[in-house]
């Protein structure tokens, strides 16, 4: 079914037309044209619902991409993907509609905004529909990238750039870890397809790489979904325009990590590590996020921390529910744990509805009053009644108060937490009693900040003096999207059966394929006088009491976390990396040629010396050496003495002449060693070189005595002796051991036959290996041109530079 591919690619391809439409129709707000994309996709995905209900099979389609690497653009639509795809397209449509009145065409670069947004939408659809892990990873990084671009939409603000960079660094670091996990899964399972991995699970679930792969995949999921302690990027991402915050940072992108955990559950859920990590990190995030949300004074910051905490709630439910996959449990226990997964999916849906509403409400408040600061807001109830009603519905739902949908999912959450408390099958039974306690405490904090959002903004005294202009109700168009979401909150709250059978159950079947038959999702508003209900009553009672006494106990936030925040750790880490690498580079990249040469020589001595010691090269073999005559000994002795005298020479003339002497004696040696051509060339080259030396050094300063301290000279001497020893040893070893005959017999035999020359060296130079000579001539030519250019061309001084420019 290629329609799925078209669905993923439609938003990506439409980005091409957005700038064209923006330029072509200056009167039209580009958002209206963009709106068609998510609406069409939403209708398409709604039409897929009947096919997925009642145990419908997953639809799949694949286009080969890189078959040699087992990478195909494979998409699968099952219940879980469908739930996410509906959220992405549905809320995407509402957000586009909302942004039409939120972003002004005259003041903002809205074409960029919609390009990024559509890019994100396509990437997100790709993430939830991909079956191939590598394709999933590609779309995953595209969501990070488009989120980065959207957070920094107002790129002239420092805070926006800081927030964008932070979210990029954290989510991409997690993405890399996740890629590592995927590759490990491929190494074990032999396929990148998620469904084939699940099918072949028995073959590799005991592998030593299984738990590392799980940890890496979880790292990706935790960073993306802002789980403790990687949650710090989300509050800073609130510098994005509010529609972006509503869409990316509450409803969709931050749920990509939850999607990944749910999607990989069939692979990993049987492991105890998975259970403890997912539910433990989820609970920590839940508690910490709800605790921190209460102290915030910026409305969007409250919502950011509340998102973190709700994501933690869903994550912990996914963790608790993974116990259902554990082998050897009673059937009713399996059903109860499967209920936790159902709760997770249900709350995931509910959170998207009420958090989307809340962000849009905050955007309206910001738009109409010019501030989001809770200390300046208050008493807006009479001025903005519709907005107030929407905020009330969404907040109460988030707090878990009937008759809204948040109440239902919170009850199911308590059920799951209580069920987890009975758990002893993964060892450490005592700790699981913490689950309901943490869940309850976090719910109390959740209740408090929900009340803060509503009552600090809309109730109390109206502070006209703190606001720039008199606020009034938002335009109708701006109220429609949050109103749609809020009505969903109420409808789903009153009739949960609407989504339970159509969306949650197929999604549950995808997360727990083996246990799907054991559990059917039934969500009812009233389920008797249960423990969960009493817990909720307790939450409300304690929450009201604490909210009313907020100012008396708010002081604890100064003590905890105080200075120990994770933002400081992040900032400190960046600073340490920055300064540390600068310091390290500054230490060894000194700019001194001598230091670099010392590194090179020391490395050479170390590597070659170590290898020679290891291989014990000096032993064995009895090489046959040529006989030695007195005359040659004298020549070599003169060479060595002349060379040794060069560093000791007091004047430059002596040094040059000594070097020249070495060259001349070398040419004498060439005579002795029967190399007439070499001797000739060496003689001429040495003469020219010495002349050139003298010519150049006529202009150079007098040779100064090396006024360096003794350690300097000793160090140099040590290194040079080391180099000499290494070279001598290698030369001795190599010259003594000849493994095979030279190919020169051919040259000797054929020099006259083939080339018609008697001087073998010259024949080799111009005939057998004439190509070397050609390039050697080129080297000389380049060197002479370079010398000419060096002497003639002068850009720095006025005269020469002008002459060059005039030509």
């Amino acid at each position, binding site marked *: 079914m290629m329609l799925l591919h078209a669905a993923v690619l439609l938003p990506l391809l439409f980005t091409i037309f957005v700038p064209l439409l923006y330029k072509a129709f200056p009167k039209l707000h580009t958002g209206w044209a963009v709106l068609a994309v998510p609406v069409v996709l939403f209708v398409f995905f709604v039409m897929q619902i009947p096919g997925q209900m009642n145990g419908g099979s997953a639809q799949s389609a694949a286009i080969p991409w890189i078959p040699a690497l087992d990478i195909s653009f494979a998409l699968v639509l099952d219940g879980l993907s469908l739930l996410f795809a509906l959220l992405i397209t549905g809320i995407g449509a509402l957000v586009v509609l909302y942004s039409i009145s939120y972003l002004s065409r005259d003041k903002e670069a809205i074409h960029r905004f919609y390009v990024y947004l559509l890019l994100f939408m396509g990437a997100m659809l790709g993430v939830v529909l991909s079956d191939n892990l590598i394709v999933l990873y590609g779309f995953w990084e595209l969501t990070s990238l488009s989120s980065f671009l959207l957070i920094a939409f107002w790129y002239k603000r420092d805070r926006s750039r800081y927030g964008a960079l932070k979210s990029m660094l954290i989510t991409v670091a997690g993405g890399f870890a996740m890629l590592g996990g995927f590759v490990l899964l491929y190494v074990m399972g032999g396929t990148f397809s998620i469904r084939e991995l699940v099918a072949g699970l028995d073959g590799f679930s005991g592998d030593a790489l299984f738990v590392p792969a799980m940890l890496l995949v979880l790292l990706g999921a935790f960073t993306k979904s802002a789980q403790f302690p990687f949650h710090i990027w989300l509050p800073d991402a609130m510098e994005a325009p509010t529609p972006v915050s509503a869409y990316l940072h509450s409803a969709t992108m931050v749920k990509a990590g939850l999607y990944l955990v749910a999607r990989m559950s069939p692979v990993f859920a049987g492991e105890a590590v998975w259970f403890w990590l997912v539910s433990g990190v989820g609970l920590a995030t839940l508690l910490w996020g709800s605790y921190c949300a209460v102290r915030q004074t910026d409305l969007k910051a409250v919502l950011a921390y509340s998102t973190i905490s709700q994501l933690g709630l869903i994550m912990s439910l996914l963790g608790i529910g993974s116990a259902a996959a554990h082998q050897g449990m009673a059937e009713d226990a399996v059903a109860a744990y499967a209920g936790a997964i159902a709760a997770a999916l249900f709350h995931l849906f509910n959170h998207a509805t009420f958090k989307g509403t809340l962000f849009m409400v905050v955007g309206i408040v910001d738009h109409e009053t010019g501030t989001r600061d809770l200390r300046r807001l208050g008493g807006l109830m009479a001025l903005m009644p519709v907005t107030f009603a929407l905020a009330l519905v969404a907040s109460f739902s988030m707090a878990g108060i009937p008759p809204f949908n948040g109440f239902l999912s919170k009850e199911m959450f308590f059920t799951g937490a209580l069920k987890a408390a009975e758990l002893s099958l993964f060892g450490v039974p005592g700790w699981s009693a913490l689950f309901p306690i943490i869940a309850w405490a976090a719910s109390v904090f959740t209740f408090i900040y929900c009340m803060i959002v509503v009552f600090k903004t809309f109730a109390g005294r109206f502070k006209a003096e703190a606001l720039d202009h008199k606020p009034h109700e938002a335009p109708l168009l701006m109220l429609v999207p949050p109103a749609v979401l809020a009505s969903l909150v109420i409808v789903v709250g009153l009739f949960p059966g609407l989504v339970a059978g159509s969306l949650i159950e197929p999604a549950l079947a995808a997360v727990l394929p083996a246990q799907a038959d054991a559990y059917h999702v039934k969500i009812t508003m009233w389920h008797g006088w249960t423990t969960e209900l009493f817990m909720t009553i307790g939450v409300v009672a304690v929450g009201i009491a604490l909210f009313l006494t907020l100012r008396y106990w708010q002081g604890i936030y100064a003590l905890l976390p105080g200075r120990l925040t994770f933002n400081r750790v992040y900032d400190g880490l960046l600073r340490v990396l920055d300064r540390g690498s600068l310091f390290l580079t500054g230490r060894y990249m000194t700019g001194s040629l001598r230091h670099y040469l010392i590194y090179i020589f020391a490395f050479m001595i170390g590597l070659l010396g170590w290898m020679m010691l290891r291989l014990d090269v000096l032993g064995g073999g009895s090489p046959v050496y040529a006989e030695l005559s007195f005359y040659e000994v004298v020549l070599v002795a003169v060479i060595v003495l002349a060379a040794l005298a*060069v*560093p000791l020479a007091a004047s430059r003339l002596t040094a040059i002449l000594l070097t020249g002497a070495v060259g001349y004696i070398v040419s004498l040696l*060439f005579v002795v060693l029967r190399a007439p051509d070499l001797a000739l060339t060496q003689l001429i*080259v040495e003469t020219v070189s010495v002349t*050139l030396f003298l010519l150049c050094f006529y202009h150079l300063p007098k040779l100064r005595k090396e006024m360096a301290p003794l350690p300097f000279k000793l160090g140099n001497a040590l290194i040079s002796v080391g180099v000499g020893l290494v*070279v001598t040893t290698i030369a001795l070893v190599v010259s003594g051991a000849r493994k095979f005959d030279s190919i020169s017999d051919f040259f000797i035999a054929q020099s006259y036959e083939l080339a018609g020359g008697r001087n073998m060296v010259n024949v080799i130079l111009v005939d057998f290996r004439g190509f070397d000579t050609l390039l050697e001539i080129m080297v000389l030519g380049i060197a002479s041109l370079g010398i000419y250019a060096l002497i003639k061309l002068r850009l720095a001084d006025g005269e020469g530079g002008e002459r060059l420019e005039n030509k």
Partner: protein
Amino acid sequence: MEVLLCIAAGMLFTVGTYLILAKSLLRIALGTSLISHGVHLLLLTMAGVKRGAPPLLGEEAQAYTDPLPQALILTSIVISFGVTSFFFVLAYRAYKELGTDDMEQLRGQGDE
């Protein structure tokens, strides 16, 4: 004979390295030319020395010295001559422009 030549090449390398590590550009230039002498001697020694007549067919000898390393050295002499002369002129120009031949003073700035 080969042992002696190996030691001589090693000595040339030692002195050349010592000169290259010095501060003065002049010493560095002399060091490079000493090292190239050492390399040429090594190349010749590695093929075995004095195993026959010079590589000229007119000699009518039983055996000839290996001609291949001689061709290689000839190429190498010419190339190192080209590079060395370029280096001299570069040193000369650097001194004319910058007024020093001390490598420590020719270091880059701290922020580079």
